[in-house]
């Protein structure tokens, strides 16, 4: 509904069937300071699906434009975004032709300086990967919700988070939601961090499909009359492509293709800056999320490090271990990028055994943890258990692995 007020473009809310006195939902909301929204506003507890949690998050996120192509299990959320557009909480919205078109278009929208949201799942993410991997270098703040699903052949729609590993080295901010509550909170935090001047990067909030998106869980939400401040297109590490910034020649995506020493330096320093910006985002996530990790049972000899749904399963496992008098620690990794190296090191410094359960066959979190703990921690790190292709991870599985681990490493 780009043209509700003051624009001469043909399409208006009235053209689209709204009464002349219609007030978009977003205009009835009050802007609130992000820290107040995250930590102070009263919350109401609902029992809703992850997709519904995403909808409530989007309702409060002051989104200017949402573009997506349907794919299971993402569509549950992005059709909700359509309803939010119809209600006037999102100003512009369309169903794009497919994912390359979607992720290219959303980068165009972000270049205009407006808050831009999209979402996808497994194969859709892979289809749009060329566009996605160009977002950070273009310094486009974009929020993408990623409802994980298997990407391998044979084709399946089941949950599996292997796709997250493809985003690890792109320069994208990557969060992994554990449950429906996180899928409400993390997008709002990710938007605020991604639009900071010293960050100016896209952010992806991944969640394990179906387990979270299609199942209900308790979600505490803030009153719907409050929304985040709008994106300020002028506050950015690079100017918006709106032709409002002299000097006129700002083709910031200029072809740095000439084969000479200067062009190599330009490209390498640009990349360095992108990855430095990822690290700079950590301070904002610490404020917004109360830390990049959550540590349960600090000081334990046995630790589980996990992200996403595996955290929930691990929580139950360590509770049962507690009932049997065994203290097992848990590190929940909230932000995969920036990766909380120091926080993890600090949490597991006295540990003897670290178990890393995952919902994918590659064990990307295990590799991440190993790469930062190598030579800096005495614990033995075990990769597993792992489930994938849509399998669930019973708590008993984690308990058995812990028992085995204790026998292996005395």
């Amino acid at each position, binding site marked *: 509904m*780009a043209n509700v007020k003051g624009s*001469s473009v043909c399409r208006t809310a009235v053209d689209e069937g709204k009464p002349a006195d219609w007030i978009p939902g977003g205009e009835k909301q009050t802007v609130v300071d992000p820290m107040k929204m995250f930590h102070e506003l009263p919350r109401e507890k609902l029992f809703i699906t992850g997709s519904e949690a995403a909808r409530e998050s989007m309702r409060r996120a002051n989104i200017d434009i949402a573009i997506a192509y349907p794919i299971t299990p993402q569509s549950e959320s992005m059709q909700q975004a359509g309803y939010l557009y119809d209600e006037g909480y999102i100003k512009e919205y369309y169903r794009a032709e497919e994912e390359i078109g979607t992720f290219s278009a959303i980068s165009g929208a972000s270049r*205009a300086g407006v808050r*831009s949201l999209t979402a996808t799942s497994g194969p859709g993410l892979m289809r749009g990967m060329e566009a996605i991997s160009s977002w950070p270098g273009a310094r486009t703040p974009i929020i993408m919700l990623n409802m994980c699903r298997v990407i391998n052949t044979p084709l399946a729609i089941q949950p599996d988070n292997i796709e997250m590993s493809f985003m690890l080295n792109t320069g994208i901010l990557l969060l992994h939601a554990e449950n429906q509550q996180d899928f409400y909170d993390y997008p709002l935090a990710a938007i605020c961090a991604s639009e900071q001047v010293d960050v100016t990067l896209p952010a992806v909030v991944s969640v394990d499909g179906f387990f979270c998106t299609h199942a209900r869980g308790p979600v505490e939400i803030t009153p719907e009359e409050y929304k985040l401040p709008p994106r300020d297109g002028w506050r950015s590490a690079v100017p918006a492509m709106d032709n409002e910034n*002299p000097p006129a020649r700002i083709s910031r995506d200029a*072809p740095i293709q000439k084969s000479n020493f200067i062009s190599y330096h330009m490209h390498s320093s640009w990349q360095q800056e992108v990855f430095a910006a990822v690290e700079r985002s950590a301070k904002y996530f610490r404020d917004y999320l109360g830390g990049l990790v959550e540590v349960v049972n600090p000081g334990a000899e046995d630790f589980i490090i996990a992200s996403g749904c595996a955290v929930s399963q691990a929580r139950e496992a360590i509770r049962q271990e507690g009932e049997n008098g065994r203290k097992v620690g848990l590190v929940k990794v909230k932000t995969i990028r920036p990766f909380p190296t120091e926080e993890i090191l600090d949490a597991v410094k006295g540990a003897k055994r670290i178990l890393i359960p995952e919902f994918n066959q590659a064990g990307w979190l295990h590799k991440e943890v190993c790469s930062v703990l190598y030579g800096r921690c005495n614990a033995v790190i075990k990769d597993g258990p792992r489930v994938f292709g849509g399998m669930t991870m019973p708590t008993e599985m984690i308990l058995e692995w812990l028992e085995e681990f204790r026998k292996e490493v005395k």
Partner: protein
Amino acid sequence: MSLETLRPTPAFKDVLPIEYSDLVEHGPYNNRGGDGSKQTVKVTDMGKFKEVIEEHPMCAGCAMTLFIRLTYIGMPNPEHTIVVGTAGCGRLAISQASVPFIYGNYGDTNAVASGLKRGLEVRYPNQKKDVVVMAGDGGLIDIGFQGLMHSWFRKEKFTTIMLDNEVYGNTGGQESGMTNHGKVLKMAPRGKFGDKVDALGLAKVAGVDYIARLAPTNPARVARTVRRAIMVAREVGHSYIQAYTSCNIEYSIPTPDVMKDAFEIEKERYGFEEIISPAAKAYLDEVEKKPKKKKSD
């Protein structure tokens, strides 16, 4: 940006590069009144005023370069225009212009422009921003085909200009969808198998509001066509220009004969043609009638 933003502060005028002052004082930025529908920088004065694009690394005699220069002269409001391109020869010149240029991924132009235009409408409800895609035949009809067609179906309010040199010039001379049947080029060692894609026909079927085909044989007509296309995209719907911009390298056209070739091809199969929807026609009639004295270029 407004002209006031661009106009040099008097106090700094003497230390500004002469090119910058010239662009504002004697270039297309400063020579248009009102909504830009009136052309006051004359193509016939080319060489006497500062152009939006002056330096470029294109091959000697390149017809595409001439067309791009004329496009920038024809823009109704270059100070509020953003150009979107993709890989190909054209971007080597386009990226040198004093108009923001988005150099995206392969074949993503019309998707990027869709998001950009809609985003700009949200952010600047009271200031028209013109978005122009300028990309090659391969970038649009081959790798960018899906995005191109769907931007047409959605009637996105921007202009697509195809720089049709009928070959992948930048990668060294491979045949494209716009190459003519039977033409022997790289990757078509036995001659191009299929026919040249009827992009104008596709545009018509897709309901594009303003469609034009031309060769850069008549400079004033190029500028006028570009201006009409951008004006239609601003207020009515999508517009598409398909321009014959020969590749004298890959088609072995002697540099002095580039324009001769353009005239020949124009006569043979690339004649000037406009296909205008009733809505676009009504709009153009209205804006082009406004000035008391109708100026021809």
